[in-house]
Every structure is written in C-alpha cells, then in structure tokens.
C-alpha cells in the first residue's frame, strides 16, 4: 500500500528534521521525507495540516500482563491502547508468568503482538532463571531469537557475585543489562519516599540511599565487567548526578525516567492515594527537579511510561497492601508535551527521548523516519485540549493519578509498518 502524509510538520530528531514536509510510505517502509519519489501514486492520503508528524513512539518499559495476569490486561488490549497513543514499540520486562527466560515465552509474546498487528513488543529476557536471583538464564538462546537486553525487573539481585557474573555473561553476548536500581535490604519493606510525608502518614520509608547505593554498586560493576548498563526509572536527584558523571567518564551507561516521576512528588500520597504508589517511590520536590534537570541536560536519555495496568481491586486496599504502578500509556506523550509547555525541554528533544533515544538503548532500528526504515509514524494535534478520565482511557487499567488532569495535544493517527492502526 502506498500512502502519503501531507502538509504536516515533521519532527524526526534522529535525522535533524524539524520542518513542513510530506512523508511517502510504501510497502510498510518510509520511502522518502520531503521529496516525492518518481512515479509515486498514493492509494491513501492523510492530511496532517496543522499537526506534528513524528516517528512512532518507543516505550522502554510497559507491562501487558500477558501471559499470567490477563485479568489486568492483555497483549491485545494494551497494544491497541499503545496504538491509540502513538506508541508503536513496547519493551516489556521479563516478569510475566511464566517469566521470559526461554525462547518459547519470548517468541510467544513477540508473535502475539505481531498477530494483532497494533504495535510491536520487544520483550526483555530474564537475567536469572525465574528471576530467582541465583541461576543465570540461557542468555545466548534468548539472543538467538532477537532479545537485545536482559533484566531482573523489580526483583533486585541481592548477591553481588551473581550479579557480576550475570553482567559478564550478558556482555559476552553483547546484551544490555537493564536494572531498576534498588538495594532491597536498605529498602527494608518501605512503601513511600522516606521524608516528611512518610513520617506524617506513618508509612515505612524508602531512603534515597536504597537507590544511590545500588547505582554506585552497579556503576562499579559495569566498569569492572564492561557490560552496557541501562538504569530504569531513576527517582533521586543524587542518582542522576552519579549517572551523569559515569557517562561523562565514558562508561557505557544510560538511564531513563518515568513520565510520572517528572511531575508527581510524595505529596501525591497525602490522602493515602494508592494510585500514587509506584516503584521507585515518588520522591521530594528537589528530586523531581533533579530528574527534570537530568532529562534536560542529557544525563537521562529517555522517558518511559512504566505502564502497569491493574484491575480496580488491586488499588482498593490500605496503602501498603496495594499493588504498585500506574496505567500510563495514555499519558506518555501528553505528559511529554506538558514538559515542553513548562519549558523543561524543546519539542524536538522531548520527542527524541520517546523515539530514537529509547530505540538506541534497545539497540533496535526504530524511532526514526529514516528512508528505508519501518514506517512507524505518530501524528498528533498539539493544540487539542482534553481531560483524562477513566471512561475514555484506552488501556484496560484505569489506575492513574492523572485522572482529571487537563492535557494539550492528542494523537490523531498512528501507523505501524505502514498500516493505519489508529485514526482514519
């Protein structure tokens, strides 16, 4: 199918394009941006006048809940939600049930997404078998079927000898190790940022050192083993500085931040709001500012959704008994646009942090409008105002602390492999 996106303002940060262009697509690939190929005869035209045309978004961390927790959400429901929000690539952590530690589980998730065709899922492999923190997973086998990174998800490895060997083994096969940095011993059963609010509410605190000690340890191990390390979801200002320094020193390290950590602080928990219960925790205003500084200055490369859809009951409990996480596919781009509105970063840099930069971290060919590349495209109306409410959220999970927020900017079309998966 030949398709043309006309009159849009194209922003393709990877190719330094930020201008009005037409985009030509054929056979699922980008044929050209700007210049009409000879003899191009479009079967379909999308008029993007007044809209932004950018690469399909790449979300570094999103849980589909399948296999294992289909009562929360499914690959079908969440890839469809992703398409509705301009997201065409989703990286899924290995903590499914069963865990992604075999080729069979990896391929079944990948293939199911292909089967529905709304967005592609790139699963991360497990760092240890069953995420048990003691036996290495068969990383070479995972690599063989297309896995580019391994992780122990939200199950930090306590034994650093095993961590070191896992990193060395991953480095052998050129796999990136994704780490959500937390020292579980220092966390000590905490559920909220250790500070004024946890003191007032009587919640067990998670000290900043639970993150900084882990970051320091893993930076040291990365230096020792030479493996590429990606830190998921930094939450403290100090960790941002440590990562920035390590990158400056030439270590192969990168980091992301969730969109919600760039907006919310511990104050979100004021009335024991379980929708504000996330891991790592929402921290102080100073930390939030530090994270914003990190994304603006480049110490943090990518913004992700850390999408964790839940059924209603998972949050209908006293605070510490709730399941962590936010349903956040619906707010990834809107919160990004809000950062631009608030002057934290330029539109082009913000889009880079949710397109080409996460793609580089995943070591995949995505997040650009390069000629010959897969035609994953997001078109949005940056002026459209709307309000988030549970009824119109596209994810099956309605657990969002942003319900009721006013946003500006809404996706109108999404193309995945040159096919219109959202919009008309």
């Amino acid at each position, binding site marked *: 199918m030949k398709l043309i996106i006309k009159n849009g303002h194209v922003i393709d940060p990877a190719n330094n394009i930020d201008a009005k262009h037409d985009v030509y697509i054929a056979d699922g690939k980008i044929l050209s941006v700007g210049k009409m190929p000879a003899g191009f005869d479009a079967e379909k035209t999308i008029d993007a006048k007044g809209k932004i045309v950018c690469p399909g978004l790449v979300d570094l961390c999103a849980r589909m809940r399948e296999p294992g927790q289909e009562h929360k959400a499914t690959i079908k429901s969440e890839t469809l939600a992703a398409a509705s929000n301009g997201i065409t690539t989703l990286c899924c952590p290995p903590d499914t049930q069963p865990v992604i530690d075999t080729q069979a589980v990896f391929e079944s998730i990948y293939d199911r997404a292909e089967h529905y065709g709304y967005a592609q899922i790139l699963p991360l492999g497990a760092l240890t078998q069953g995420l048990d923190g003691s036996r290495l997973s068969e990383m070479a086998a995972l690599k063989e079927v297309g896995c580019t990174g391994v992780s122990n998800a939200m199950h930090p490895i306590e034994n650093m000898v095993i961590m070191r060997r896992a990193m060395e083994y991953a480095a052998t096969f050129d796999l990136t190790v994704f780490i959500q940095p937390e020292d579980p011993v220092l966390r000590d059963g905490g559920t909220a940022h*250790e*500070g*004024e*609010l*946890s*003191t*007032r*509410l*009587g*919640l*067990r*605190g998670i*000290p900043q050192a639970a993150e900084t000690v882990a970051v320091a340890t893993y930076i040291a191990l990365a230096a020792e083993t030479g493996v590429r390390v990606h830190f998921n979801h930094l939450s403290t200002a100090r960790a941002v500085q440590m990562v920035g320094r390590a990158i400056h020193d030439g270590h192969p390290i990168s980091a992301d931040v969730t969109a919600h950590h760039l907006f919310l602080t511990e*104050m979100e928990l*004021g*009335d*024991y*709001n379980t929708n504000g219960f996330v891991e790592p925790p929402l921290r102080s205003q100073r930390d939030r500012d530090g994270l914003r500084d990190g994304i603006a200055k480049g110490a943090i490369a990518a913004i992700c959704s850390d999408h964790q859809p839940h059924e209603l*009951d998972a949050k*209908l*409990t*006293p*605070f*510490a*008994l709730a399941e962590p996480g936010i349903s956040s596919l619906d707010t990834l781009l809107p919160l990004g646009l809000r950062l631009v509105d608030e002057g934290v970063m330029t539109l082009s840099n913000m889009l880079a942090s949710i397109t080409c930069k996460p793609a580089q971290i995943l070591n995949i060919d995505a997040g650009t409008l390069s000629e010959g590349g897969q035609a994953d495209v997001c078109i949005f109306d940056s002026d459209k105002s709307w309000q988030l409410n549970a009824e119109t959220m596209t994810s099956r999970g309605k657990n969002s602390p942003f319900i009721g927020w006013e946003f500006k900017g809404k996706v109108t079309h999404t193309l995945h492999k040159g096919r219109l998966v959202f919009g008309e």
Partner: protein
Amino acid sequence: MDPKKASGKLQTDSNGRLRHFLTIEGLKSDLLTEILDTAESFSSVAEQAIKKVPLLRGVTVANLFFEASTRTRTTFEVAAKRLSADVLNLNINTSATSKGESLLDTLRNLEAMNCDMFVVRHNNSGAAHFIAQHVAPHLRIINAGDGRHAHPTQAMLDMFTIRRHKKEFNNLRIAIVGDVMHSRVARSQIHALSTLGAAEIRVVAPKTLLPRDVQKLGVHVYHDLCEGIKDVDVIIMLRLQRERMTSAFLPSEHEYFHLYGLTEEKLQFAKPDVMVMHPGPINRGVEMDSKVADGTHSVILEQVTNGIAVRMAIMAMIMGNRHGQEHAS
C-alpha cells in the same frame, strides 16, 4: 493533597462536626477542646450507682481489631456500654482475612449486620482512612490505632489527663521520650499538643528511633535525656518493643535504660511539679524505673481511667447526641 486538608475533609461534615475520628491532624482546636469538655461531663458517670447513660441506646458498635489489643479494646467496650450501646467484638486477624477475603468484603459483611459504628485497629497505616472512604455513608469510624500513623483517642485521653493537672496548654513544655519512629501514639500526641497550643514540644531519642524530618511536625529534637527534659512540665514516655534490639535500632535494653530510662535522679532536671505519663504497658527497668512509674509524679493509672470518659465523649459526639437528646440515627 496536603494531608492536613485531606483528613480534615473526611473527618468532619459541612458544619465542622465530627463524622469520623481518624487522626488529630487537620482537626481544629475548638473541636479538640469540645472533646475534652464533653469527656469532663462524662467522667462522673463512673461514680454513679448505675454507670450508664442512655445516649447510644439502640446503636450497635463493632470493635474491629485486625491487630491484637486488650486494653484499648476493653476501654472502648466499657465506654460504649456506659453509653448503652450494643457492642460486637471481632478479632479479625485470625479469621476472615487469612482466608483471602479482602478488607472491603469483610466490611460489606459487617455493614449487612446493620452496625452503626466501627472502632478499627489495623496494622497498616491509613487503614482507618481507607475504611472511612469506602463504607456506607451512615457508618462512623473511630481509629483505635493504624500502623505507625495515628492513635487519636489515646492522644486525646493524654490531653485530658494533662489538662486536668495543668489547666492550660499554652505555657506547657512537653518532652516525648523514646521510640517515636514506630509510635502512632507519639504522632497523634504531637498533633494534639501543637493544635492545642503547647509552648514547646520536644522529642528525645537516639537517631535510630526518630523518623526522617520529624522536626517538620513542629518538634525540637534532643538526643540527651537530661537536656531534653530540662524544665519540662510533662514527660511522656513511649513503649519500647523488644524487637528493636534484634533489628539493630538499639544495642541492648541495658544501654537504652542507661541513656533514656527515666529514674528519680534524672527526673530532677524537670520542673518540680512535672507529670510523668506512659501509654502502657510499661517495661519496668527499660523505659523507666519502678520508683518513677509508681511515684508521686506518675499519672499512668489515671490515664487508663480517663480513657473511658474520653472515648465516651468521642463516640457520643460522633453519633450526634452530645447534649442528651435522642436522635434516631
């Protein structure tokens, strides 16, 4: 949302009257004073030949204790019975919830039994808030202790005891000594004392037993007991759980008593008419010497007695029968 505003909104109705009693934080000083005044009027009930008033006749109060307690539960039971309410005691930690029933299901079942008021103790901070947010609108909730968060009736009985001896709060200097970190009692006392206008609130403990940013609650921090109780009018000792020694908060009971145990010698640093309080049960020889616990400055048993009148007052105010008229509820 600001925790003060959030709890205030949940606890009081549009006229500022008490609907639930979940935490002291966010309640106005007038309301706390009203509780103390009402408790004063109830304290004589115990001296009558028939220790009962008919204010809560026909009202069913359910004591929902998800965490073991003898004294608090008993005083709530006595208070409810003296107000002529019917009382159900439910110890839930071993029954329904261990079979996988959710907290909300348990509540729905109790609602179906037409209770009017739940007195709730739960080991999770915020549990009483959660219950108040989700029960049917006619139900009233009293927090009898949630995790490390609040124990507001205990704090009010302490305020009642202090006021009986000292009359006013605004000249008082108070020291709270011991495990503030794990204490819901201390948090509620701090909010009560600051709302009632106490001149100075101090906390005295090693750093391991003080929560992060505790000074932001409006207290002065001391690590030395003699300095911390110097010239104070009231000393509130907190209970120290034995498990603090095994989880490295403290080296030993011996060292704790040496540094923070209240003895007659150390008591000399306080004002001559200092009151010594403790929410109980006391570990003699750990938090304080027996001579202090049983001495002339101690009001510890008085606190227990006052607990009944204060809990009667809070229950009566919540059920809207404060002046003795019978409202159909």
